[in-house]
Structures are given as C-alpha cells and as structure tokens.
C-alpha cells in the first residue's frame, strides 16, 4: 500500500517568505485527494517538495518512508503533472515521452499506449510547439502515466482543458485511484491540487486544505461537509399549505419569493411530508453547503481580493 507522509514540513524561501509552515498530512490510496487552498497557500511548494524539486527547510515529506530523491526508479512509483513543466517546442510529443521512457527503462510501446490513453494518439508525431494548452496538459498526463505509478500528483490539471476534457479527467482520476480496489488491492494515491472548488467537489474523496502554509483541515469530503448547513427548496402551487404542514412536523420553513425554503431539513423529511399531504410539486432542490463556503470558513476568507470578485465570493457565503 503506497503512503505519503508529511511531518513538520517547512519551506522558507530565500527572501524570507514562509511558504509552508510545519505541515503534517497523510495521503491515502483508493480515492482522489484534493489539495486545496487559496493562491499562495503553499500547495505547489508542498507538491514540489514531495517530488524532490524543492528542498524543505526542515521536516520531511516521504513516499513509503523514503525521500523522492532516494527512490530507485521514481518514474515507476510517482507520476507528476506540474504547471511549470515544459517541452522543447521543436520536439515531437512522442519523442518527448521517449526521453523519459529511456531514462526509466520503459519500453517504447508504452509511449504509444499512454498517448492513446490521453487522446493524443494522432498527435504523437507533431511538434509540441503547435500544441494547445489542453493538449500539453494531456501530454503531461501521458508522461506521468508512463511508469504506471501507484502515486499520481497533479497540480491544477484542469488548466487549459475544455469542459469535455475536465469531465474526462474527473472520471479518469476516480478510476485510476480505485482501479484495483475490491480485487485485493488498496488502490492508488491520487493527489490533485485545484482552485476550482466546484470541480474539486465533484472529483475528490478526501481533502487537505491549506491556508497560509498551514494545514486548515484534512479528512473525508463528506465528513467535512456533513457538519455544514443544508436546505431544501420546493416550488409548489400549494406553498402555504406546505409551510403549515412542515411547521406541523416541527420542520422550519419559510416562504421566500414564492419558494418554500426549509433550512436544515433533509430532502427525505420534506418529501415525506409532501406525499402525506398530497402536495403537488413542480421543483425540489436539496443542497448541502458548497465546498466553497466550507473552504472560506476554513481559510478565513483568504483569497478574497478586494475589487476583484469580493462581491461574488460574498454571495457564496450568504448562500440561501
């Protein structure tokens, strides 16, 4: 079973900036772990320390108890898709992958396999210089998958992908993390950093939330969301009757703009009341509080830049 363990992980850059501050976390196999935090929270620095590209000032982050730099064949253990990773524009996609395959001792048949896996089978002979950002991102993923690693690390992988690409990536990551679960395997570790919280909410099973270089929260997404507010909204021609019925069952409910809003109720409870009272329903929406709202709560509103989206983000916090 693959493990990733960070203990007291700290990075102070040359200018005195404390990017990561005594960070402890564990990443578990079998599901997708979201690495979340506002800009400057230390996500990228942490991932780069995990991959041996940045040297920690103190503390450690270990893969199966070993530093990345001491892994005998790192490409076979860990695959990484990083933002600032590059390509020689004049080199073809296939040749780019062959370079890494050569170092890792991976047969070239796997290169074509990986190109096909990410949907670049026809573009393998083209120069990367002419690739769109989405294609480069796919090529990076193909490179990360060359060694069939049991740990996959992706820094903002959705950047540059179109909606179909994002949906594909979401399904792929979920599948990759849990491919052998239930067949005697523990699954793989997949860590995804993201600032797209609504997307992350659809993808991740576990979350690690960073704020200001420190751990703000860690755990199963559903557990973290369970403690948050939820509400049920119902559109019905019998609005007044529904509010009465809900109050009769000691369920809070108010009429707001012709819509019945029941804060803190479950869809099951409201639904049962409606059937019992034979109330016609036109639309019913059950919502848990969003990951966004939880995120702002955990990170203390960091990342709310005045003049840019502050109002927009404020709206999230006053979720109906």
């Amino acid at each position, binding site marked *: 079973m693959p493990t990733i363990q960070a203990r007291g992980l700290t990075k102070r850059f040359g200018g005195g900036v404390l990017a990561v501050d005594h960070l402890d976390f564990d990443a578990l196999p079998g599901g997708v772990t979201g690495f979340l935090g506002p800009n400057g929270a230390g996500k990228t620095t942490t991932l780069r320390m995990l991959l041996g590209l940045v040297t920690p000032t103190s503390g450690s982050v270990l893969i199966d108890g070993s530093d990345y730099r001491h892994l005998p064949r790192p490409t076979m253990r860990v695959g990484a898709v990083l933002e600032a990773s590059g390509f020689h524009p004049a080199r073809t996609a296939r040749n780019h992958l062959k370079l890494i395959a050569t*170092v890792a*001792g991976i047969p070239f048949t796997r290169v074509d396999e990986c190109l096909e896996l990410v949907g670049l089978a026809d573009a393998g002979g083209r120069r990367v210089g002419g690739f769109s950002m989405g294609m480069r991102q796919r090529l990076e993923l193909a490179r990360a998958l060359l060694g069939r690693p049991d740990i996959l690390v992706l820094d903002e992988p959705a950047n540059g992908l179109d909606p179909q690409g994002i949906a594909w990536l979401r399904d792929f990551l979920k599948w990759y993390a849990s491919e052998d679960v239930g067949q005697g395997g523990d699954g793989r570790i997949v860590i995804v950093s993201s600032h797209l919280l609504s997307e992350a909410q659809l993808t991740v099973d576990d979350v690690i939330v960073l704020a200001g270089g420190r751990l703000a929260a860690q755990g199963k997404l559903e557990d973290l969301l369970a403690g948050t507010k939820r509400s049920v909204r119902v559109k019905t021609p019998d609005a007044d009757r529904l509010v009465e019925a809900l109050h009769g069952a000691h369920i809070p409910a108010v009429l707001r703009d012709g819509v019945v809003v029941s804060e803190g109720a479950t869809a099951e409870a409201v639904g049962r009341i409606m059937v019992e009272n034979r109330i016609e329903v036109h639309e019913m929406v059950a919502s848990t509080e969003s990951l966004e709202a939880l995120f702002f709560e955990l990170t203390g509103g960091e990342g709310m830049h005045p003049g840019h989206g502050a109002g927009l983000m404020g709206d999230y916090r006053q979720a109906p």
Partner: protein
Amino acid sequence: MIRLVESEVRKLWTVWSTYVLFGIVVVIDLLFGFGLSFARGGRHGGTAGLVPHGSALWFANVFAVLDNARLLALVLGVLIITGEYRHKTVTPTFLAEPRRGRVVTAKLGVGFGGGLALGVVTMVTGLVLGFVLVALKVHSCLTGFSRGGVQQGMSQALCRAQHGVYFVATTHTMWHQWTLIAPGVILGTGLFAIYGLGLGALLKNQVVAIVVGLGFTLVVETIVTAIWPTIGEYLPGQAATALEDAHRTGFNGGTVQLLPWWGGAVMLVVYGVVLAFLGTSTTLRSDIT
C-alpha cells in the same frame, strides 16, 4: 547511467538546433577555408594566399580555419544544459532522475561526445576541401596558370609530364598537414563543448551563457593574449590552439606563445569540470519552482 546517457543523446538528435550547429560548421569550413586559400592573411605566417600554393604552409593555413568548430561546440555545450531551463524541461528531467549530479555527469559525457562529433565533422569537411584544393592546384598547373607551380620551379612541361607524380606529392603534403592538425582540432572541439557546458551550468541563462562564452573567446581572450601572452596562453581558446599545434610549432612564426599540447588539454578539462562542478553545487542544487 547508460539510460541517462542514451536519453541525453536522444535529446540532442530530436531537436533541429543540433543539426543547425553541425550545418554551420560545414558551411564555415567550406566558405572560409576556400576563401582563405586565396586570401592574403592567415594565422601561420600571415600570408595564406601569398605562400606557394600546394605547399605544406599553404595547407596548414587553410586547415587553420577548421578549428572554428570549437565555437560551435561551446554553443552546443551551453545549449545542452541551458535548453533545459529555457524550455523548462528541467522539471521532467529531474523528476525522472532526481540525482542531479548524475544528470550533469551524463550531460558532460554527451557534450564531450557531441563536441568530438563536431570536431570529426569539421575535419572530414576539411579533408574534402583539401582534395578539392589539390585537384584545383593540379588543374591550374596543367593549364599553365599556376603561380605556385612556377614558384616551385616546376615548368609547365614538367608539370604535364609528371602530373601524376605531382598529384601524389601534393596529396601527400595535404594529407600530412591534415594528420598533424586533426587530433588536436577534434580533441579541442570536444573539450570546448565541456567548457560550454560548465559555463551553461553556472550561468543557467542561455543567451547570457552564449554571449559570455563567445564574447570571452573572441574578444577578451584576443585582447588579453595580445597584451599579456603569458596569461593568454592559459585561457581556453589558446589552450585549444596549443592542442592543434602540437607538432607544428614551426608554423607559429614565433608570434604566438602557447602551452605544450598536454598543458592545453589539462587547462580545458579544468575549465569545463570546475565550471560544471560550481554549477552543480550552486545553481543546479537550487529549487526548481
């Protein structure tokens, strides 16, 4: 380590800039070499076009242009390491092999090999040029327009009568000069690639490293050598020249002070390895962000 070296070799042959460097070497050799064979001015004795055509000195002067390949080798060495930073391929490279010292070692090996290849290409081009010059020389002798033939005391009749012998003799002179200069040029070109690689490892910025490398060799060295020849002989360019002139001290005309050939080789290795070591222990150890 073998896989690393293989990957580095592959890196070179999968980008066009490598082919451009080799192409430039061939073009420079042919253009300048051919031009020089008629021009008045050359390093060895300073009168390439004036010395008797077909003589040993004439070929030595023409072949002297072949060592310009070392400038391209310097650029090759710089590109091998700074290209990784410029195109940010350093991230996947260090992900696949996190022990950076091994990556630099592989690059030094491949850079040396690439430099030697440039040296071989320049010398082969030189050989082709040499045969062309021999053929032209014999032709001009036979058609009676040979200044050199006359200077060598060979009458037209004699030339016509003995043109086979004359061809063999000129070829032999050319070949002898070629064998004298070839090992030094090839080794010097290879070592210059290491020097460039060390420079690139230390400076990291591609443009800066190329400007500093070429500027130092072409401008600073020339000035220093002219004013303080005892310092100049220890600089990279003069050290490489010392390699070539191993057996040809007579051609210097006493104008240039040079180290013994092995001294030149040692100096070049020292430059390359010291710079690469400094680069590895400072720049390359830094965080890749």
